[in-house]
């Protein structure tokens, strides 16, 4: 049985009378690349805020790495690295900003330089010396990811890491995420609006709609449940009849597997006209 590394049980969040989360249950297992999908305002960011302790939970429990008490939860949050936008001091360079993060994370001083070099190399910013205020959006995103993986956390949370990136940048993030799991054994939770991209990155998906996780599905489930074969034949009527008996020459066969996007819109409505 898979070991749950993040568990949300019946999480509710209310802002005044507005209920943002209406009892979210979610389990992220060790080694998952878990994609969190939902419209704007569906509650994805609120879920991250609950996990990171940035927002008070109205009701329900969050458990990280098996934490059973509030103090254990606080302690285990140190096992989480997270990217929730580029949050850096404008006047500091990439290296100085990471030094700040590394100090807050408690990386020993003698290991700090090597660790900063390592993460800058992973995100491809090893030669950048200028202050953060001169960074492009893509560079900022990369530095944000570097900050998140400092100290090699067990769990990595990435909130919209591909926001504003060009196709090359998006592909780079995808490769990085896969590398984080394969090389560094991280469990990754990632949210994105780009469902096609998330489908290529994650292997489990949680679909959130109107404050509830309406479905958790694996990539394998998606392929199994939603696959279909489209056959183009010379005579459709005949084909229908003869297909069961055999003998019809199949001119072309196209496997049309439902995409994550199709599945998502089928589940929550909306999407393609």
């Amino acid at each position, binding site marked *: 049985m898979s070991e749950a590394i993040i568990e949300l049980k019946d999480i509710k969040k209310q*802002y005044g009378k507005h209920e943002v989360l209406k009892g979210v249950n979610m389990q992220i297992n060790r080694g998952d690349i878990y994609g969190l999908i939902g419209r704007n305002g569906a509650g994805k*960011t609120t879920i*991250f*805020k609950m996990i*990171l*302790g*940035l*927002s*008070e939970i109205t009701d329900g429990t969050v458990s990280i790495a098996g934490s059973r008490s509030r103090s254990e*939860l*606080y*302690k*285990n*949050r*140190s096992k*989480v690295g*997270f990217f*929730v*936008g580029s*949050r*850096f*001091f*404008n*006047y*500091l360079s990439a290296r*100085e900003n990471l*030094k*700040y*993060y590394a*100090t*807050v*994370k*408690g990386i020993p001083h003698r290991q700090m330089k090597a660790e900063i070099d390592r993460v800058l190399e992973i995100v491809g910013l090893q030669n950048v010396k200028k202050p953060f205020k001169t960074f492009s959006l893509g560079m900022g995103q990369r530095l944000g990811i570097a*900050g998140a993986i400092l100290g090699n956390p067990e769990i990595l949370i990435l*909130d919209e890491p591909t926001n504003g990136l060009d196709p090359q940048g998006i592909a780079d993030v995808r490769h990085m995420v896969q590398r984080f799991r394969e090389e560094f054994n991280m469990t990754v939770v990632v949210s994105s609006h780009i469902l096609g991209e998330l489908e290529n990155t994650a292997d489990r998906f949680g679909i959130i709609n109107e404050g509830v996780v309406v479905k958790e599905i694996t990539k394998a489930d998606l392929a199994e449940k939603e696959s279909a074969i489209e056959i183009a034949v010379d005579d459709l009527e005949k084909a229908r009849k003869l297909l069961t008996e055999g003998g019809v020459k199949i001119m072309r066969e196209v496997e049309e597997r439902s995409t994550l996007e199709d599945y998502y819109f089928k589940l929550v409505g909306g999407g393609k006209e």
Partner: protein
Amino acid sequence: MRRLIRADLRRILAKPGFYICPLISFALFIYGLFSSSIEYDSYYSNLDIQLAYIYPFLVLLPIFTCVYGDELRSGTMITAIGRGLSRTKVILAKFIDTVLLSLAFVLFFLLMDQITFDRFSVVLTKVQILRVFSAYAAAWLQILGFCTFAAIFVYLTWNSSVGLVAGLISIAFSKMILDWLQNRTHLPFYDVTFLGQADMARRQFDAGNMWMHHVFFVLLWYALFLTVSALIFNRKELDL
């Protein structure tokens, strides 16, 4: 918490803007060194004004800009909270940042005074030295009080400028208003505050009497301000 303080101090000291106020005061000091002479009595009578109004301003500005402003602008505070540091500890870390930085400023001002004395060959008696020290110590306690009080507004509004303005207004008017209220009503409006208690500690110290209990009351004021900040901040939704 220690890690956050260390990281904070390192990044604050790396910011060129942090040194603007000390540089301004240093420039004024250099000007003073070559433009006039000084004697203890005139120095001591001016010291109160400087300590009550000018120095707090010179300390508050860089502290609110660097300790709180940069942090809120960059959104880095959530790094520490997301790593499991409680919000109360974040508040305490910021308070300790303020204690250390304001102490550094006060020592810097004191050092400039010492250089001025040397420049004009003013030799102070032991009593005079202690009086200067007690004046500075009381001023430091008051500056810390203003900073801790004004920080409540930062946590309330999530805006360091509001905190800075609250701090500057309280520096400019609180003493005057509280004194006026005290004189009019004969109730200890001024005396019970951290300002009054710090002044009393100084007076008692100068007179050779017991003074520590007044410092204790000043600390209680800090504890009150920090508690209010914690109550506000612990309920605050932090935006991502």
